[in-house]
């Protein structure tokens, strides 16, 4: 089981579904959520400021299309500012996009493991946890 997961999505329903599926699949002990990139960056900023706290989410599920700050912008900032401090962070991009350019772009980030399509189901989470363990 994964310790902490950060789920970044502006879709509240999707957040609900993720929580339920995660519970069902016993995917993670702790689920943090953010509704856009900026919120997520704020979360990392807070983590960084809390000195001595060695615990941080090793898995981030990231939507791309969000208000205030989208997924790509978040990734850029995160990689620039926080990746060094949280090097074990792995990212799955979760999106309903069909734009092939997005998939190509995702491959450019070292921390991004894959691109997964919604909906998030318990079966999908089981598969994901297998892939993370293999790493």
């Amino acid at each position: 089981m994964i310790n902490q997961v950060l789920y970044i999505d502006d879709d509240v329903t999707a957040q609900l579904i993720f929580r339920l599926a995660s519970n069902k699949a016993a995917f993670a002990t702790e689920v943090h959520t953010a509704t856009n990139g900026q919120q997520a960056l704020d979360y990392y900023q807070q983590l960084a400021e809390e000195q001595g706290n060695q615990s941080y989410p090793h898995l981030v599920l990231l939507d791309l299309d969000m208000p205030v700050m989208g997924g790509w912008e978040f990734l850029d900032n995160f990689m620039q500012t926080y990746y060094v401090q949280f090097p074990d962070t792995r990212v799955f991009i979760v999106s309903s996009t069909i734009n092939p350019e997005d998939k190509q772009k995702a491959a450019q980030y070292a921390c991004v493991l894959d691109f997964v399509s919604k909906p998030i189901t318990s079966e999908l989470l089981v598969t994901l946890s297998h892939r993370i363990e293999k790493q």
Partner: protein
Amino acid sequence: MLLFWGKEQFCFLNDAYYARRPVSIGSSAVDLCPDLVPLLEQVLTTGTAVQSQEDLLGWSKLLIPAGKISFSYSPVFGDTGKPAGALVTCTETIQAEPETMGTGGMAQELILDNLSAHIAVLDPKGNIITVNEAWRKFSADNGGPTTGFVGSNYLLICRQSGEDEAIQIAEGIDKVLRGKLTEFTLDYPCHSPTQQRWFRARVTPVLADGLITQVVVKHQDITEKEKNWLLTQKALQEKQNILDASLDMICTIDPEGRFIQVSRACRNILGYDPEELQGVTFLNLVSKQDQVKTIRATERLVAGEQLYNFENSYVRKDGSLVPMAWSARWEAKEEVFYCVARDNTERKRIEEQLNLQEQKTRTILESITDGFGVLDKEWKITYCNPEAERILGITEETAVGTSIWDIFPEAISLKFYSEYQRALVEQEPVHFEEYLPSIQAWLEVTAYPSEDGLSIYFKDVTERIKDKQALELSEQRFKALVQEGVDMIGILDQEGNVTYVSPTIEQILGIPVEFLIGKNVFDFIHEEDREWVFQYFLLLGSVKQMKLDPFRFLDAQQKYRWIETVATDLLDSPAVGGIVVNARDITQRIQQAQEREDLIRELTLTNNDLRQFTFITSHNFRAPLSNLIGLLDLMQDIPVENPLLAELITGLQTSTNALNNTINDLTDILIIKSSHSKSGEPIRLREVFDKITNQLSIALVEAQADVSFDDTQVPVVNYDRSYIESIFLNLLSNSIKYRSYDRKLKISITTREIENGIQLVFSDNGIGIDLKRYGNRLFGLYQRFHDRPNSKGFGLYLIKSQIESLGGSIQVESKVNEGTSFIITFKKQ
């Protein structure tokens, strides 16, 4: 007095007659006095004298009044004793009649006296009956008696003289008298102390009633004749001397081929004396090798031909050979060959020298690169060198002796004839160029007249002429282009000032030619283009020709036109001396291209917008749909007790799934359509087949399908793997879906190579499709023609999109209730 001999000829006339009427001896009585002829005939046939007062001679009227003259016609007996002539005596009656008209004997004497020959008449015993005046005179002149002849025996006189000739004459007379000779003649010399004389003694009998009653002895002076003969002999001798003096051997040869007479030259030529050759058969002297042709020549001579410069060689007395040249003629009447032969040694030598010279000339002629030929005055070819043979396509062997007009009849109407004729007539060399059709070549010809004809040098100049003609043609084309073309042609000086511009500029830019001449072109070029055009212009010189990008040029309406130009530096060309600019108005083209570019840009933008729009829309569709699916998925674990709710939830689930499928399908299509040509990879078709049949195994078993696969022709294709799989999956599942329930399903998949491509053929024995009815909609999106489970009308649309996105194509063949074949063609990579 005149004497006719026979009935026609005057043979004598005396002075008296001559004084009255000068006629020449030998004139014809028939011509002179035709009226006399019957009377003459009478006298000659009867032998009796006739007297007449009538003037039958036709002259008295002129001189003497008629009736004052009388004519007597007395016969004169010839050597045979028959009347051979008639003596006509014309006597003016005024004179004493008895004297003139004496007895017949008187008359006869008178006649005899007037004859120049010495005549004596003898009786059968040889006694002289009478002599004439000439006889007496001769005797007197030669110191003999003047009278007393009559009665003496002439035979005795002759015999007593002791001279051979006289004795012979006496015997001759004796023989005539005795009838042993009908006539006796002897020519004898009788030279006087002062002059040489010859006489002819002639003895003829006078017959009366068949008996010899008298003989006439006649001594005629034939000195003149004899002298002539001697002269002739002398002349002949002289001629012989001349002949002998000749360097040529002159000879006569008899019909048997023996020398009759040979001139002395034979001594030098053949080494024989003329006497040695007489009677020798000439052929024996001819060298062996020339005998046959000499015999032939002789035959030709006899046939009437004349021989000139017939050459053969003779064997000299010393055994050496001497070349001879013969001119000869056969005189048929005399049966003699007249021949003149010349020692040909010198000539041969000269000939050989000439031959050598000619050989040299020939060698030179044959090695010259021009064609060379010689014609005689009858246009016959006497020589042509190998180059001439090559150019004219003739051989010297066959051409020599033939008239050039026979070989090239078409040339008569061309310059060849007229020019050659001119050269011959004017004796001036001619030079011309002409086309000779039979050899399809242009010849450059120089002909020099010579004594024997023409010497002709010629060259095949076809290439040069062709070039020239091509140049002329291109000049014509150029003119046409300049004056009527759509191009404007201008010539500029180094500063860009116009020195020439074609009239087309008026039609195209509306600028009059005169207006532009002398102006600088850069003043007309749009200021934005001026600088770069000028830079290019400066490059000319190092670059001979350049094509400039279109630039704007001011027209007569002060509007800019786009022109495209090619500039060529011909400043060095003396004919042009400037920069030739070939310009074309392409304003319309530029405008069209501009419009097209604008359109494309606009369309691309729109298209991109649309794509983005689609992605956003799709995303916005999918996000809530995903949630719906996720929620329904989570609901599955929660037991629902209300049956109605359970049913509603099921309905919700079904609808959500259907919506999801549709969205997914459309997404797939969107991705295929928007992706730019995917790169292919080598794919084993067998692998794909195995994978898909495995996926469909349950359905295939269910349909009891018999699937055959043949990839022997094309085992590997270069393609997008997912597309290939999609093609196999969709077509195989279609075959299953639309199988006939009446028979076992058979599917065959084959590959084949065609020109420029590869084909994949899927055939089944399913229910088929009515192509007439549905053909045009078959590959449409969401087109369904059969009510079969899971029929969405999407698969064919999908694979068609996939195939076409990689530049392939798909065709269908089908018969209702028999089966369907899909033929997919890939481009060969």
